[in-house]
């Protein structure tokens, strides 16, 4: 069988006769997404973009749930507006009222009008993100996702919006698709926590108008066996800013893709990730940032702590178009290997067509500093705690990307908790 026909056979099996809903404002986008998907097929281990992360587990049947690691509500002190999704289904009883000062919230499952604010977003940022690299799981999500949050932020929203995921059933395949429209000058914080489902496929499309600011913090640490693919597609207009941070731990296979287009001038995108992975788990951060506007800034900061046969992958690209003079691009991916068995695979890429730019990238892999560990222990600090201090220090450049100091502190506390729990 040719690669092409194998792709198609895999896809037919994966779709299993599911067809996109044919009514509502997303109908057209779904038909187009399905056509895209059929043209590209599901990812295959031989695809260049999947060279370091075998997609087999993502193509097969959804697994059973693993051990769950529930956590307290993220940002509880900030009184977040909570939207809970249980195995991908909105749980009204475990959610706040959908009323938001400074914006509008709707659910994908209930927003069937044709004049919806999300109409220009749903599937369209994802579609733009399909070139130059295919992202089949995102197209699959656009075609089939039944639920998600549609957010229209018109002003400065103080309350964070917490998307709370709960995984309850074995073998449950969950797709959620969120759209975020940020009006000019608007500001919001989106928090995500929990496990989408036994296997999750999440797409977020965010459109940031002039001068808007979006904070995004994700804690992905709840299930030992979870499989998850997430895509964050963001389009940034002039002077807008995106700050995204993800903490990952415990999942069996997680791939987080971030695709950002800096369209306007003086926009800024920061993407950070902190992952704690113990074998046989596999974690993948894949980032593609396109600089189109002038004098934009982008930062990618990814830190992996790996142990006992874990694999960490970083694929990060900065594409600077000819128009993007005065670009300031920074990328760092680092791994801390707690033993000799683990692997960190990094593929940093720069593609630059403008001549007046500042771009730097670096990638390192290193072991824990035994001398520092002994020094801390000699002062009475137990080895595990000493190691946690060194891990937090290693993670600091990533956790510093969280603007809110309370949330940053919560993430550091979670890192310590994972270290204790996983005895990393």
């Amino acid at each position: 069988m040719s690669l092409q026909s194998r792709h198609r056979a895999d896809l037919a099996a994966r779709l299993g006769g599911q067809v996109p809903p044919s009514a509502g404002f997303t109908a057209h986008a779904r038909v187009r997404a399905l056509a895209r998907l059929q043209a590209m097929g599901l990812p295959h281990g031989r695809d260049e973009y999947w060279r370091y992360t075998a997609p087999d587990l993502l193509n097969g049947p959804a697994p059973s749930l693993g051990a769950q690691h529930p956590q307290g509500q993220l940002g509880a002190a900030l009184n977040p507006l909570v939207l809970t999704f249980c195995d991908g289904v909105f749980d009204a009883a475990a959610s706040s009222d959908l009323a938001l000062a400074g914006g509008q919230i709707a659910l994908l499952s209930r927003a069937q009008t044709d004049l919806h604010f999300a109409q220009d977003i749903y599937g369209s940022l994802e579609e733009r993100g399909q070139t130059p690299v295919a992202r089949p799981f995102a197209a699959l999500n656009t075609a089939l996702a039944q639920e998600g949050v549609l957010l229209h932020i018109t002003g400065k929203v103080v309350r964070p919006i917490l998307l709370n995921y709960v995984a309850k059933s074995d073998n449950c395949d969950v797709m959620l698709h969120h759209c975020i429209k940020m009006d000019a000058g608007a500001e919001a914080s989106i928090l995500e926590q929990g496990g989408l489902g036994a296997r999750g496929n999440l797409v977020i499309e965010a459109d940031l108008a002039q001068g808007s600011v979006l904070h995004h913090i994700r804690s992905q640490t709840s299930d030992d066996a979870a499989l998850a693919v997430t895509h964050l597609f963001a389009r940034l207009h002039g002077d807008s800013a995106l700050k995204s941070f993800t903490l990952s731990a415990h999942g069996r296979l997680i791939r987080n893709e971030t695709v950002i287009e800096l369209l306007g001038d003086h926009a800024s995108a920061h993407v950070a990730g902190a992952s704690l992975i113990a074998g046989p788990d596999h974690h993948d951060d894949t980032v593609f940032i396109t600089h189109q506007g002038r004098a934009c800034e982008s930062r990618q900061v990814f830190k992996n702590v790996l142990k006992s046969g874990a694999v960490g992958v970083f694929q990060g690209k900065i594409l600077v178009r000819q128009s993007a003079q005065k670009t300031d691009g920074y990328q760092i991916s680092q791994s801390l290997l707690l033993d000799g068995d683990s692997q960190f695979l990094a593929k940093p890429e720069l593609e630059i067509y403008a001549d007046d730019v500042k771009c730097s990238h670096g990638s390192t892999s290193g072991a824990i500093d035994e001398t520092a560990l002994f020094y801390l222990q000699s002062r009475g600090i137990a080895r595990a705690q000493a190691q946690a201090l060194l891990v937090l220090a290693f993670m600091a450049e990533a956790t510093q990307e969280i603007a809110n100091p309370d949330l940053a502190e919560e993430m550091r506390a979670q890192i310590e908790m994972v270290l204790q729990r996983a005895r990393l």
Partner: protein
Amino acid sequence: MLEIKNLHVKLQEEDKVILRGVNLNIGAGEVHAIMGPNGSGKSTLSYVLAGREGYEVTEGSALLQGAELLDMEPEERAAAGLFLAFQYPVEIPGVGNMTFLRTAVNAQRKARGEAEISSGDFLKLVRERAKTLKIDADMLKRPVNMGFSGGEKKRNEILQMAMLEPKMCILDETDSGLDVDAMKLVSEGVNALRDAGRSFLVITHYQRLLDHITPDVVHIMAGGRIIKTGGPELALKVENNGYADLLAEVGA
């Protein structure tokens, strides 16, 4: 306080023997000094007592107030009251000096079954002790020993000692890299901690430190052994004549 008996140590990875039967007895409240040529095993002795990896004890024991140090993890040795001021203090990027000090103080309190120190009390204590060592607020804020000068690192060691209030303090060449004024500060810091329940083992190459911190006993170490023990006059003799005579005396 500290009782070292016939301690033999080799490197774990190599066949190199470094300590060849060290015997040392330090009573409560006493100050002992160890001098000796480069490479004689002084730092190795202090590392082995503190529990650093990479060494293998082939024979002997080291009791701290009757408890076998060699069976303990490094952090347990610290909790038992041992403190080593390092010859080369370690830089730790990303870990704030304050966080480090507070974590250490609380870890030891916990090990002793005491409650954690409140942030207020801790701050007051650090500021007060840092001031007497002329350690400024900026040094406390920076990551552990990062960007500290040689002398600042040594003063930071003494600050840690002052905060942890150990029973048995080993100072490994704390005087090296100190200017005359810093030497005085550090000595005053040490002297302020001298009391009947606390002992010191001061490793040094120079009489100068011992002018400030008067030892009760002076040991000369060579080739991994204590080859001579005497009073403060022994240090003066070394200062004036070097080690040649002493080595000849014992036929080393």
